[in-house]
């Protein structure tokens, strides 16, 4: 766990960070606002102080209130790993700038995030369903996606069709979502 | 109307039966009247009859040859893969390939819609015809060449080249992109390898001055140093590579590269029509091996001539009426002779067991004796055995290569043919001609 990296991140984007840099085990974590996401990523990639050239992972998260996009970066010079969380995407129409301008390899991961969460990455040339069929309607990894055999956490359990796109009528706020304020 | 209720077979019979009845009657009358003339005509042009008989015979022997080669391929590759391979049906699974053939026969012969039906149906026939017709000129033994005509080698290349037509027909008519690619690959490959194949034997033609295979074989008489593989090594290498490509064998089996284009030209085929392609491939392997052994390995000549002229001259005609008696009594006596020691050896052996064992032993011994006698006394049998030994060694080599080598890419394949084999074969021709010019024949 690298204190120097934390200090560097603080003094680079001190005002941009929504929360102070968290470090646990060998992972560092910063949160940046939706507007700053692209600049932050570009700085992390190009700045010789960081050189986070490898995009290890890109994924979307549905916390119940909002959508997040999480980037896991790895530095090719120093072995640092960084997690950049971009919170605050609107659950109804999540949109964020694509990372393919810098990492072309992010294309399919963004496609997957779009397929699973409906997050629209502006600038991705090939943003379409990747796992699910093209005529598929719902976004499976959203928290209000019900599984018929999931008796654990949904009043819609036991509906005949395997999933239901939206919130069922008889669902109440207490039971629709598994909200996680901590995330 | 009854006609509409008849099955196709029934309709065929309804047409054929009256024709047969009338035709049969007419034929009898005609035979009665012009029989002598017809016999005279047949006697006059015997070669046509000979050709027909030879074609039928070659067709008949081509199928078991294919079965044998398929079994060899399965078993040898299995052993090289550290597997056991077919071992359930027949001794060591020897009947496996026959069962495969029956399976292919019983499968549904499906014609996909949107294929060009006549071409689609004709293609396997053309391929199989082209492959077994080349068997005609194979000199199994000096006396065992079905059609030993002068242009045998040329005939071989001409008819062998016909199989490409069949592959192209299959690839084009199947209405399938894999098939199309496979057919075109096969055509390109076969055409580009025909040239080095033909040119590589020109050296031998220069040396022997003939195109007839029996004469080429006869030209290699003597010890194994007279074989053309030692007098024309470069030609032998080129020829071997070229026939590998001609027979669509690994590493040149791009036409049915199952990792790239699913089954190539045979993708849409099923049932016996696929079986024809399958058989044709293996008959081709046998034929090219036979040709190589005839042209380069001395064909039916033994490697070393051991001049045995044994004095066992049994004048069977001298026995007269005794011959059938001996022929009838010999098995009985032989069986008893061999059975007696077994029966006396232990008391636990029952009489019938002893007799059966004796008969089997007698059978084996007598067969071996007759075989040896034939090998020694009848030159054709000896030369046939030598020929088959050489041929099947080559077949084993092909299967061995299939078990070892990966597949060459199509462009590397063509480049190899045009950039290396063709100049090499031309060089071989010039070298041979020069040597002949210098040293005389």
């Amino acid at each position: 766990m690298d204190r120097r990296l934390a200090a560097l991140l603080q003094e680079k984007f001190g005002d941009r960070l929504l929360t102070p840099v968290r470090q646990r085990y060998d992972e560092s974590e910063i949160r940046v606002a939706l507007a700053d996401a692209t600049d932050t990523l570009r700085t992390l990639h190009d700045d010789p102080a960081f050189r986070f050239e490898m995009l290890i992972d890109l994924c979307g998260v549905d916390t119940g209130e909002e959508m997040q996009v999480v980037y896991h970066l790895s530095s090719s010079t120093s072995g640092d790993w960084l997690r950049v969380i971009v919170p605050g995407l609107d659950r109804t129409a999540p949109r964020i700038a694509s990372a393919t301008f810098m990492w072309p390899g992010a294309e399919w991961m963004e496609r997957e995030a779009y397929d699973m969460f409906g997050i629209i990455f502006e600038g991705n040339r090939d943003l379409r369903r990747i796992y699910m069929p093209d005529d598929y309607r719902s976004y499976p990894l959203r928290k209000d996606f019900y599984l018929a055999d999931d008796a654990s956490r949904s009043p819609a359990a036991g509906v005949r069709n395997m999933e239901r796109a939206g919130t069922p009528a008889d669902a109440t706020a207490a039971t629709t979502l598994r909200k996680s304020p901590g995330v | 109307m009854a006609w509409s209720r008849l099955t196709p077979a029934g309709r065929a019979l309804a047409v054929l039966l009256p024709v047969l009845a009338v035709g049969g009657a007419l034929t009898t009358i005609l035979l009665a009247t012009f029989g002598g003339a017809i016999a005279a005509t047949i006697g006059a042009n015997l070669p046509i009859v000979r050709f027909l008989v030879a074609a039928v015979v070659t067709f008949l022997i081509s199928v078991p040859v294919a079965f044998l080669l398929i079994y060899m391929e399965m078993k040898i590759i299995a052993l090289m893969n550290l597997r056991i391979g077919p071992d359930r049906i027949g001794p060591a699974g020897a009947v496996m390939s026959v069962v495969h053939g029956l399976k292919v026969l019983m499968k549904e012969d499906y014609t996909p819609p949107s294929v060009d039906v006549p071409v689609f149906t004709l293609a396997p026939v053309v391929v199989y015809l082209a492959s077994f017709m080349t068997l005609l000129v194979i000199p199994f033994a000096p006396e065992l060449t079905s059609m030993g005509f002068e242009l045998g080698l040329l005939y071989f290349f001409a008819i062998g080249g016909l199989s490409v037509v069949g592959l192209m027909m299959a690839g084009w008519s199947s209405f399938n992109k894999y098939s199309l690619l496979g057919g075109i690959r096969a055509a390109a490959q076969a055409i580009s390898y025909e040239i080095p194949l033909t040119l590589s034997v020109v050296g031998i033609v220069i040396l022997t001055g003939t195109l007839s295979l029996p004469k080429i074989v006869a030209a290699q008489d003597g010890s194994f140093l007279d074989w053309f593989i030692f007098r024309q090594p470069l030609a032998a290498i080129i020829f071997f590579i070229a026939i590998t490509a001609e027979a669509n064998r690994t590493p040149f089996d791009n036409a049915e590269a199952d990792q790239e284009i699913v089954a190539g030209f045979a993708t849409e085929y099923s049932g016996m029509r696929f079986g024809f392609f399958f058989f044709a491939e293996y008959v081709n392997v046998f034929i090219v091996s036979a040709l190589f052994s005839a042209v380069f390995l001395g064909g039916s000549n033994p490697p070393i001539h051991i001049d045995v002229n044994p004095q066992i001259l049994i004048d069977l005609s001298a026995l007269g009426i005794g011959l059938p008696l001996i022929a009838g009594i010999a098995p009985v006596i032989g069986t008893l002779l061999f059975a007696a020691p077994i029966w006396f050896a232990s008391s636990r052996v029952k009489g019938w067991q002893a007799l059966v064992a004796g008969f089997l032993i007698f059978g084996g011994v007598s067969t071996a004796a007759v075989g040896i006698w034939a090998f020694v006394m009848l030159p054709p049998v000896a030369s046939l055995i030598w020929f088959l030994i050489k041929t099947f060694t080559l077949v084993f080599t092909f299967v061995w290569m299939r078990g070892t080598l990966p597949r060459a890419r199509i462009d590397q394949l063509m480049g190899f043919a045009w950039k290396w084999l063709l100049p090499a074969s031309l060089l071989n021709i010039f070298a041979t001609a020069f040597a002949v010019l210098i040293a005389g024949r």
Partner: protein
Amino acid sequence: MTQQMRPSLDDPRVAIPAESSWYEPAPIPQTERQAEFLTLREGEMFVNMGPQHPSTHGVLRVIIKVNGEKVVDLDPVLGYLHRGVEKLCENADYHQAICYTDPLEYVASLFCEAAPVAAFEKLMDVDVPRRAQYIRVLTMELNRIASHTLFQGWMALDLGGITPILWAFIERDEIVDMLAALTGQKLLYNYYRIGGVNGDLNHEFMSRLGTWMSRAAAQIDSNLALINENEIFVRRTRGLGVLDAKTALKMGVTGPNLRASGVPFDLRRDRPYLVYPELEFDVPTRDEGDSLARYLVRMDEIKQSIRIIDQVLHEMPDGPVMAKLPRLLRPRPGRAFGAVEGPRGVYGTYAISDGTDQPFRMRIHDPSFVHLQLVGPLTKGNLIADTMAVMASLDPVMGGVDK
């Protein structure tokens, strides 16, 4: 006869009878890229490979736009094996989630277990006993050897050689059998637990391992001799699908495919986990970045793995193999990313806990998914046969790609 004709999908100028035209309907392009892919120029046609194609590993469908034999463009179609593992894991508790991640890579299951286990252990601040760490390293390296051996066979098979795959399966089966003797399962060993492993080393495993180690290296070398020296194989793979280091980094390539491009990035070295920092091993790299280099890097890794196994067997300490843990695991809310270096690259698991006994979000990152993107860029302008060679050299496993 009069019948209405319809234009062919490949070439609109070719009219084919309507009753013989049961193609799939022409897909409506949804994106810019797809539109450009679906437009055919002069002399081009689509060749559809898969999902039931002999040489697409698993159920992958690749639509290839060819001009004659030359591949112009290529579009992989995924999702035939999609099981929604992430959703399943979110609805199972932490122990059950490990079992779900197992079938992701049926070739190297242990790595798919190791990643979520590492993430969960970070979430719960669990210290794994040293013996368990050594056992994990041992089993993982064995599994890596099995995977690479199988890769060698598949590579040769996709190039048309039929023998190496069967020789490879002999070695792999021995490893699989000994792992079955240890874990109790033959293919999907559900062996790693949060805080240790399920069951200590036993006698069957050790005896099988000993007999195998005594002849493994020589056997594998002799197997390699079949095609490593083979001109046909080398000519087909050398200089094919060259991937330079810069592109590889931008494409997010990891593992042997990245090391074959000259970037010595190996999690076991750069981001040490378990007891790897205490073990001696090299990180084989090559600079060519072509298919042959990708193949050879894997073959070198087999030897390194054998080295590691040798050291682990000598330094294996005694002690417990499981940490003391409550029956019901409720980690405190937090996030953790566990990553291990697998035979194909970085297997990552990003787990979010909200304090319940089930992961709130569990993201599974599989390297095959990233590497499959490269098939298009790497095979453009090559032949159809090269598509198979490049795909085999990237070594994707569809179970992980489709999740």
